[in-house]
């Protein structure tokens, strides 16, 4: 598969700078560990947050951070896309007989984000232990879906952000509200936020669907329609489609305007 070949190239590039790569992984690990320490201290002082326990919030935090770290690894090409347009690298992509999305994803794999992913998975293990849930197959599946849905949602936002480059070269920073802002927000159960924020982040940008709603199922708070709660993360996957559509429109526009 072509993506695996790209992955191999990225790894070989990173191995040219072993120490650098190792330090970057370590730095990513530590910085997200500090972020989680903040959450832990908060609960140490207050016991619970809006009726949510440390284990539940940790799970939210861990799922969101893992999803974000996965996205940052695989979809980094979209994050740094404005540079590719300016340097003409995107022209090269258009000169090859393959889809643009795959090629952009393949062009950058950010290995250092694995440090963040490692830390997130560690918190996930802790959270699962603190929650003391009785695990069964549907619950394990739900957890996997949460990670998948989350990664897809973040990837969708990255793609949208990159697609904006086709229409304007300015004001791209505001999109960080969705990536970094979204990550912060989705690190906590949605109920602690205001109603409009909740709706926006459930139905427009489906962050709520990747952790809050399935979390209700995992912790046994969803009595009716359990399967529905379980499958909500798939909305995150569906979110990719409109994003790719906008991307395609962007590519069309790029072809007619050039750079």
């Amino acid at each position, binding site marked *: 598969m*072509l993506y695996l*070949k*790209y992955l*191999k*190239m990225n790894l*070989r*590039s990173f191995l*040219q*700078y072993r120490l650098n790569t190792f330090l970057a992984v370590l730095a990513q690990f530590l910085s997200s560990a500090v972020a989680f320490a903040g959450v832990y201290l908060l609960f140490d002082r207050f016991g619970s947050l809006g009726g949510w326990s440390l284990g539940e919030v940790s799970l939210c935090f861990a799922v969101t951070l893992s999803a974000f770290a996965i996205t940052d690894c695989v979809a980094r090409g979209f994050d740094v896309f404005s540079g590719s347009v300016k*340097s*003409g690298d995107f*022209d*090269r992509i*258009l*000169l*090859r*007989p*393959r*889809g643009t999305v795959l090629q952009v994803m393949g062009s950058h794999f950010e290995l250092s984000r694995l440090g963040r992913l490692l830390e997130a998975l560690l918190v996930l293990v802790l959270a699962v232990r603190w929650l003391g849930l009785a695990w069964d197959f549907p619950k394990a599946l739900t957890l996997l879906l949460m990670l998948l849905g989350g990664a897809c949602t973040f990837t969708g936002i990255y793609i949208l952000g990159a697609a904006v480059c086709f229409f304007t070269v300015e004001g791209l920073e505001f999109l960080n509200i969705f990536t970094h802002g979204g990550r912060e927000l989705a690190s906590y159960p949605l109920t602690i936020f205001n109603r409009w924020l909740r709706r926006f982040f459930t139905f427009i940008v489906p962050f709520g669907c990747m952790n809050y709603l399935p979390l209700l199922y995992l912790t046994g708070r969803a009595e009716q329609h359990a399967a529905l709660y379980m499958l909500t993360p798939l909305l995150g996957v569906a979110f990719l489609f409109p994003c790719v559509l906008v991307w395609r429109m962007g590519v069309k526009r790029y*072809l*007619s*305007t*050039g750079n």
Partner: protein
Amino acid sequence: MIELTHITKTFKVARRGKGAGAAVKAMFHREYKLVHALDDVSFHIGRGEIVGYIGPNGAGKSTSVKVMSGILVPESGACEIMGYTPWKQRREYVRHIGVVFGQRTQLWWDVPVQDSYDLLQAIYKIPNERFRLTCEMLTETLGLADFLQTPLRQLSLGQRMRAEIAGSLLHEPEILFLDEPTIGLDAVSKLAVRQFIKQLNAERQVTVILTTHDMHDIEALTDRILLIGKGKILHDGSMAGVKHRFDTYRTLTLTFTPHTEPVPLEHAELCSWSAERAVYRLDTAKTTVSQAITALGGQLNILDMTSENPPVEEIIAGLYREHNI
């Protein structure tokens, strides 16, 4: 093989005055200026031709190469290349073309050249056996064997350009677009690259479109030149034809036994004179080299003599001047 008819492309370029006031104004209201990058461009290129595409910076060369390679859609006009409309059937079409940008690389910076080639094999889905044969052929003719296992960043510019050219030929394209392939190369590498392009064209009938500012590239490689300026095709013809038209003088350099008095010559300009060496510029419309030598031989004891054509740069400069670009 390549057929462009009435291709037009206009870009909107934001215009902004100087100073902070104008910058603020530009945030709310922009004035645009239309730039006609291509203005009714038509030409035909047949299979196996090598065409030199020349013109000053900003004349529309790269815009038309972008149109022909399918990464820019023109406003009007038609472009048919090997039965495809490049921007409509991009993915099928680009399999058949190779593009080399002299200033940019398509290979990976930090990994050995061979690894980049392997990735290209996967991208173009080249069957193993075919890929092996093409690789062998390119390695041999471009002399890549010494550095195939070296990361690109450690190669010299000449090696990099050869690796680059090989990279764009792995999928055996029928058309090759070369954008300044010899820029910055030393004399040996330049000759090697030119030699290879010639051979490729002769043996495999690859059609080559060459944009360059190096007139020696043009002279060494192309039979036909297309001159573009201000978005229009100004001249389409053979290199020999252009040369003939602007070939209006000869530079005659003589050495002789010491002679202090400068000797004037009819229909020629005396460019420099020292006791034993002189340079004349002959107007070939009015006189010939043989007449000049006969005239000078009567007064000077000539030891040696050379006659030179106008350098190709001057011919092209003459062409630019004639078209006022």
